[in-house]
């Protein structure tokens, strides 16, 4: 057997690398030549006007939307491509799944499995994908539900939970896969205002813990300034400006950003 080049090229400083990503829906050119690197353990908050492509970025990393061109690497491994005789070729389903284990995503509308209890929601993927035993998966799920403050809701179905509780179960469900990268797409914007706090508290804890790489689309500026290492202002399919939360939220350079922040904060 020929020795194959190891797939993992050490890239200690980059967890997510997006290189020259282009993506269109028909005529609508949503992502334009996008370059974006995220360091391991970094918390990146993405802001920007509606339709600017924020969700699409996360969906590309989650393989829910395949880019028309460009490459994505997760922890040094190509997501959509594999090396064949030194050449980059389109990856098969098997390769994509192997790389995708490092990533998970939490959705605006939870997308919990309605026919499974909270604990079953957290157990399914660890059993089926990671090969955990039922007992191991149950213990892992129970600990995570405990962590997100739902220690008493193991056996409730999603339909029996409030929006905030559902979203916390959804976070626990993703965490159970122990991904290196977690993507959060406006996870509080479908919630009643009084329920937003409980979910943000969980996210803040998670961010403070430090090891997880997190990319969050959110308009919760308080959360962004407390938890983010970097804020990206997104517009028309590319990064308009970026910097620390203090810089972007207090003293943005672009008019566009200033107007956007004003609109969001007065909202």
């Amino acid at each position, binding site marked *: 057997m020929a020795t194959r080049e190891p797939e993992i090229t050490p890239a200690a400083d980059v967890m997510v690398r997006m290189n020259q990503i282009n993506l269109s829906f028909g005529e609508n050119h949503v992502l334009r030549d996008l370059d974006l690197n995220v360091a391991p353990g970094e918390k990146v908050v993405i802001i920007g006007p509606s339709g600017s492509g924020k969700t699409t970025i996360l969906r590309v990393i989650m393989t829910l939307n395949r880019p028309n061109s460009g490459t994505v690497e997760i922890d040094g491994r190509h997501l959509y491509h594999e090396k064949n005789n030194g050449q980059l070729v389109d990856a098969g389903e098997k390769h994509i799944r192997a790389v995708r*284990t490092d990533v998970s995503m939490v959705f605006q509308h939870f*997308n919990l499995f*309605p026919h499974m209890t909270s604990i079953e929601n957290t157990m399914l993927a660890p059993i089926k994908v990671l090969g955990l035993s039922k007992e191991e998966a149950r213990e892992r799920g129970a600990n995570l539900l405990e962590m997100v403050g739902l220690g008493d809701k193991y056996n409730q179905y999603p*339909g029996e939970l409030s929006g905030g509780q559902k979203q916390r179960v959804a976070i626990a*469900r993703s965490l159970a*896969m122990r991904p290196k990268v977690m993507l959060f797409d406006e996870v509080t914007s479908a919630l009643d205002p009084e329920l937003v706090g409980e979910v943000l508290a969980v996210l803040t804890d998670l961010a403070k813990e430090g090891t997880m790489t997190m990319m969050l689309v959110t308009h919760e500026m308080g959360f962004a300034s407390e938890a983010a290492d970097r804020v990206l202002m997104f517009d028309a399919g590319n990064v308009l400006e970026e910097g620390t939360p203090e810089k972007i939220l207090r003293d943005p350079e672009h008019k566009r950003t200033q107007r956007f922040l004003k609109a969001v904060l007065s909202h």
Partner: protein
Amino acid sequence: MLSGNQLQALLEGTWITVQVFVFAAILGTVLSLIFGVMGLSESRLLRAISRTYVEVARGASAIVLLIWAAFALPILLGIPQVIGPLLAGIIALGINMGGYGAEVVRGGILSVPRGQTEASIALNLNAGDRLRHVILPQAVVLMVPPYGNLNIEVMKGTSLVALIALADLTFEAQNLRVQAGGGVFEDPPSTAAIFGTALVIYFILSQLIALFYRWVEGRVGGRWHGART
């Protein structure tokens, strides 16, 4: 009124009717699942195969399929001694049911929100687990009522096997009419009683099927059903 022997004959026919129904429903269900899932495949070819099957199985009609399966298919295949009326009936009714059932399955799966698939991808489930543990359990709940109705239609459709001389309930009723002397004028009350009883037995069967599927609906739905995510 019916004599004891006549009733006995109708009940024996009923037993055949039940058998044809059960086996046709099993075949029909298998075909429904195969072609229903195939109809949602990413492959154009598989979708086209499924579409063709659905259109032909439904369009040919139960009766035409049945007659063809009984009198043409065995000869075309050169195995007339293998395919008797019972097998022909089961094949034809099963294929016909599969055409309708595939649409029930496809419709049920399509009604499961897209977010469920996306969440399964975000959890890295493979396509098989996704279908088995996430999509189908939810789709089944939506499928049960139309599937129950389809079963009633298939049960009623079993009466067609009388036309290929399989001794089901309808055939026995016809037979009794003839035995009662051609029936029409000699013994009118008997003819009415024979077909009246046959109709009532069919009605009871269809009510039992309806009842069964209402029960199934309650079971598969369980506590989560009705509450939304």
